[in-house]
């Protein structure tokens, strides 16, 4: 059953208010596909039932499940590959040199979804930079969705998920079979601090400073004002010589001119000198 236009507007406003994510007209199918399963789980007849409940009570587990369902995005291990090549070839060697005195590194995956990005980074670091095992590496991974964070902490992936972008030698080395799923080893799961975080929060107390921030494929969902606020907050938590990665379809150009793109990898940005 097609979603009523009033119900669509209600959900779009709710998601904008809760997560600052813009759901434009024309995305009715997205709301229907994402919220259909939420309705079933909640024992409601359809998406209209979900909207009715939320109009009566804009809080509680149902609200969280709706936000989770509407903010969950597709991801895969080593997604797009080139950012990981750039991290391996340029960014981490550069930081190993700059931070050799303090031997510490701070990394933030800011929209970690169900964990493939932070786990991909960790596997790459263990394979290519074993010396980092002797460093103090703080690895924070955040997401707005509690459901995604729970899955990321568990580190269990379906066959279809491990088929996406994960080199077989890494599957063999870092995963074990758990029933029909593949679970990443405890040492990697424990190496990451998983936390719920809303990027559209006005201020980010207690965050940073970070050497590397992965903010990939999430800015596209925000309106311009929210993008500006996020990039302004990011400047405060990113070290002046740190690295910010955006998705390949995202840019700081005409949004926040205090970042400069890396000539070798245009989705990698650095703060311009003040």
């Amino acid at each position: 059953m097609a979603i009523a236009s009033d119900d669509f507007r209600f959900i779009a406003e709710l998601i904008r208010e809760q997560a600052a994510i813009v759901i434009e007209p024309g995305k009715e199918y997205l709301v229907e596909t994402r919220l259909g399963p939420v309705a079933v789980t909640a024992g409601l007849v359809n998406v209209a039932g979900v909207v009715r409940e939320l109009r009566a009570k804009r809080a509680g587990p149902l609200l969280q499940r709706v936000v989770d369902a509407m903010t969950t995005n597709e991801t895969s291990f080593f997604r797009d590959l080139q950012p990981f090549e750039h991290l391996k070839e340029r960014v981490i060697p550069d930081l190993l040199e700059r931070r050799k005195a303090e031997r510490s590194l701070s990394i933030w995956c800011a929209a970690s979804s169900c964990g493939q990005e932070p786990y991909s980074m960790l596997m790459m670091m263990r394979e290519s930079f074993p010396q980092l095992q002797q460093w103090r590496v703080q690895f924070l991974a955040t997401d707005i969705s509690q459901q995604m964070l729970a899955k990321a902490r568990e580190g269990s992936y379906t066959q279809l998920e491990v088929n996406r972008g994960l080199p077989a030698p890494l599957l063999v080395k870092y995963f074990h079979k758990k029933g029909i799923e593949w679970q990443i080893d405890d040492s990697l799961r424990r190496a990451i601090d998983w936390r719920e975080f809303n990027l559209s929060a006005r201020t980010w107390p207690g965050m940073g400073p970070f050497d590397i921030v992965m903010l990939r494929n999430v800015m596209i969902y925000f309106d311009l004002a929210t993008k500006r606020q996020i990039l302004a907050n990011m400047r405060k938590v990113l070290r002046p010589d740190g690295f910010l990665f955006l998705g390949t379809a995202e840019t700081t150009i005409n949004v926040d001119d205090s970042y400069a793109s890396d000539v070798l990898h245009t989705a990698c940005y650095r703060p311009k000198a003040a």
Partner: protein
Amino acid sequence: MRALVVDDSAVIRTVLTRILTNLGFEVIQASHGKDALDKLKGVPLPDIALVDWNMPEMNGYEFIRSVRESAEYRDMPLMMVTTETEMEQVVKALAAGANEYLMKPFTPEMVQEKLQILGISGS
């Protein structure tokens, strides 16, 4: 770029051929390991071979071992594409010389991502 597809299922051969052709590959098909070794004779070495595990005559594991022991074909990149989904089998295939392992069912994106991992792109 050239690819060799080795699978006893005509349906899988057709699906993989379509995916690889769309990526710019010329595709040679074979229905089992021995057939593949015959078809490799006298042609330029393919840039990648996608090989099923369970096949008559010569299975994919035996084919991979033969390729790695052969002076002519040993450098050919090999990807196992199979319904075998246990850890032991992935380990065994890699130990025999497979460079990658893709579990069925697969999507065109998965094939493309695995090729990217190997640094292989189409035309």
